[in-house]
């Protein structure tokens, strides 16, 4: 599967409080969470984001609170993939568990700018910056994590086993 979209670029230590501030956590509605996505770091994000767009960030993306509302809000905003140099571990698990595609690639994070057009091929792990022509390879998932993604998330995997 391939995705392609325009890039929203952020720096290091983007925490889940700025992805979805706690004042909006009194709901589980995906649509409502998406309507506040990134509001405390990028107030125009929700107006600008288009289905398929890609977030690229530097180190430790999704640090802080374990709130699964953060990857839910990003996914429900239409973001097709998050690329970062590194992810905070709880965000990493949550993204996989809910089926938000994520890729670790320090090279891609360093060589992609805001507004670039980027393509990600999940089968080969190849990330292409269509605006510059440069391409990078993301870290492949271990087979066990790949099996969660293939099942469509952790709970589907558990259900299939049962």
């Amino acid at each position: 599967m391939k995705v392609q979209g325009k890039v929203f670029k952020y720096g290091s230590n983007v925490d889940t409080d700025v992805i979805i501030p706690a004042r909006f956590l009194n709901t589980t509605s995906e649509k409502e969470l998406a309507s506040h996505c990134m509001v405390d770091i990028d107030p125009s994000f929700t107006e600008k984001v288009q289905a398929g767009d890609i977030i690229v960030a530097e180190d430790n993306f999704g640090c802080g609170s374990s709130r699964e509302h953060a990857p839910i809000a990003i996914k429900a905003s239409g973001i097709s993939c998050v690329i970062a140099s590194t992810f905070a571990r709880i965000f990493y698990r949550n993204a996989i568990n809910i089926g938000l595609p994520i890729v670790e690639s320090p090279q891609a994070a360093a060589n992609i700018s805001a507004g670039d057009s980027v393509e990600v091929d999940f089968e080969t792990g190849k990330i292409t910056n269509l605006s510059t022509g440069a391409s990078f390879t993301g870290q492949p998932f271990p087979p066990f994590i790949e099996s969660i993604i293939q099942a469509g998330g952790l709970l589907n995997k558990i259900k299939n086993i049962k």
Partner: protein
Amino acid sequence: MGMTMSQKILAKKAGLASVAAGQLIEANLDMVLANDITAPVAIKEYKKAGLDSIFDKSKVALVMDHFTPNKDIKAAEQCKYVREFACNKEIKNFFDVGEMGIEHALLPEQGLVGAGDLVIGADSHTCTYGALGAFSTGVGSTDMAAGMATGKCWFKVPAAIKFVLIGKPAKYIGGKDIILHIIGLIGVDGALYKSMEFAGDGLAYLSIDDRLTIANMAIEAGAKNGIFPVDKVTLDYLEGRYKGKIEIFEADADAEYDSTYTIDLASLRPTVAFPHLPENTHTIDEVGEIKIHQSVIGSCTNGRISDLRQAAEVLKGKKVAKGVRTIIFPATQEIYLQALKEGLLEIFVKAGAAVSTPTCGPCLGGHMGILAQGERAVATTNRNFVGRMGHTESEVYLASPYVAAASAVLGRLAGPEEVLKGEA
């Protein structure tokens, strides 16, 4: 090759003779936790996936502590959703207003977590229980839902960093200063994906409350867990309280650590983390003149009885400065009652502080102490991210209860020595 303490617990719970860093395992859980923000998502996903079973009704804890007593209609609806689920599934450890406390103070106090346990919780500060010699880590709602149904969770076995604590901390230096110093040293991703394992002769000087504060903030260095060896301090705390069976794990002598830091506790000064990351640390001697508008004393990090005693030591017979809203949150009902019996609450009220029922409220900018644009708070909480306690242009300075209380009295960031000089 030997295993770290964390690896030994994971190996045992996975039914394996040994594990190594990087290995993916599935392990059996001793406790699965969620709160009024994360449980609704977990329950929704659990129902959506058609799950029905609970692996053990006594090994699931649901604590209504974040937006409670309910801050608005939506928060009330979320608690109602969890309450009905807990009732329907006969979840034994469901804690509602009146008996609830802040989850990471409540679970140890109620004896629901202890040495040798493997715990996951849909709250990042679940790493707190490492203070008791448990492997305990924060996860999301979906992991929690799966754990609640099956009693199992997958883990990538972490590598570890060892922190050798030596020497005796000076008066006014506690767990908060130690962990802030360490985060300042290694950074907010300094322990990413790893265990923080604590050791050294300095541990003998750290109370269980100090250790809970330190383990609580392991996540602020990106760690998967923080863990303390089990010693007399731990066993004294668990005795007569912990409902499970104590199992003591020790790191092997030849366990491998990615790095080792030696921290001389005697050299530490009261430490403050400046906005907007917990790694931006300064000693109290370096802070300069920083005026504050609010002081928050409490949270899962520093809302325990020893924290309240420290605040009271500073506030006794004093008044908080005009213009500093001082809000004190005992973390559980038991702590509240103890503070009442010891006369601490009277000291707080006479000093001009507001005393609240237990809630996570202000720490995460939920309710009960939100900051306006341009306002500054000193807080004994755990995060000072942009907008964490309110407006995106407000600021949070993280510090110990001693510093938060002294700052409340002087109206600016200050250490306890400045308020208590000549009184000791």
